């Protein structure tokens, strides 16, 4: 197959699988999963330094920011203001401006608050950030954040950490069809077939964390996800057959004995 890269905010990647760096047993296991997944981008959180225990391992010692594109995210932020503070600090800490914005609304569902997300997107874009925005699978809001300048639209497949898979394929497909920037399913993937479905719908990529980190064998699941994303992408490019209500024999009817 010829080169099938995707581009976000002028940065080109061959891997369409982005993985998180939370919930792993160790940073070491996380690093092994990143290799097995063939990830080029990893999401990271920004948190206060630990002033009492300085012997704690550093993420950067296991996942080298020179080898992986760090995508700082605002997980845990429930207001636009908190998200803005976090990403301004992230830009200062890392020195890059590609970020993942997520502004949550409610502890139980972790659904994004789209009004706050839209507001924060506008401000971040004005400040020179390249904003990949976590959003609901509502095509209307997806359009609004794209118009506000988001460089990627990241609709949820299902609630964060739920592993329920893509709940609304129609909406994800509508968002893919209308968007001029990359669309990545972010959240809800539970197993390899979910990732393949996201890619078959025409998404440019998939972001996941829990599906890999909480598998019984995270490194093996990372490899499964790599294959699923590639399989789904190739199936999308190949173009699936039409669906029919009745059987259609695959062997010729002529020459039957």
């Amino acid at each position, binding site marked *: 197959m010829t080169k099938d890269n995707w581009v976000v905010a002028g940065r080109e990647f061959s891997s369409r699988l982005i993985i*998180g*760096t*939370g*919930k*792993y047993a160790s*940073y070491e296991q*996380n690093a092994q999963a990143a290799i097995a997944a063939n990830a080029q981008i990893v*999401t*990271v*959180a*920004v*948190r*206060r*330094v630990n*002033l009492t225990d*300085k012997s704690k391992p*550093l*993420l*950067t010692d296991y996942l080298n*920011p020179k080898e992986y594109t*760090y995508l*700082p*995210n605002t*997980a845990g932020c429930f207001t636009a203001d908190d998200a803005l*503070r976090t990403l*301004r*600090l*992230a830009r*200062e*800490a*890392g020195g890059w401006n590609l970020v*993942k914005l*997520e502004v949550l609304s409610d502890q139980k569902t972790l659904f994004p608050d789209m009004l706050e997300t839209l507001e924060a997107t506008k401000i971040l874009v004005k400040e020179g950030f390249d904003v990949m925005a*976590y959003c609901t699978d509502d095509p209307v809001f997806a359009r609004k954040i794209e118009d506000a300048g988001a460089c990627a639209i990241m609709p949820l497949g299902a609630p*964060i*950490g739920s592993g329920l898979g893509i709940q609304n394929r129609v909406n994800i497909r509508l968002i893919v069809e209308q968007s001029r920037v990359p669309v990545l399913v*972010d*959240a809800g993937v539970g197993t390899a077939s979910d990732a393949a479905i996201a890619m078959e719908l025409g998404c440019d990529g998939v*972001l996941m*964390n*829990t599906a890999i*980190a909480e598998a019984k064998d995270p490194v093996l699941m990372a490899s499964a996800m790599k294959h699923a994303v590639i399989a789904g992408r190739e199936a999308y490019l190949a173009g699936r057959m039409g669906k029919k209500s009745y059987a259609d024999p695959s062997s010729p009817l002529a020459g039957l004995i």
Partner: protein
Amino acid sequence: MPMQENISIVLNGEAIQCPINLNFLELLNHLELEPRSLAIELNREILPKSEWENRQVENGDKIEIVQFVGGGL
């Protein structure tokens, strides 16, 4: 009585004492923090790395020092 040589600051949400006349790079050293990949917010504004050496820590400063850690979505 010995001269007061400490100031009070709020660091990552906790009130602490630190020596007077430190700049921010010296504060990191004092806290035994490796400056690599850190970011500092001073009274809700980003304090760029380029200013760490020029800026003195003042009594009452509210300071956040953060780094990247593992996190998903």
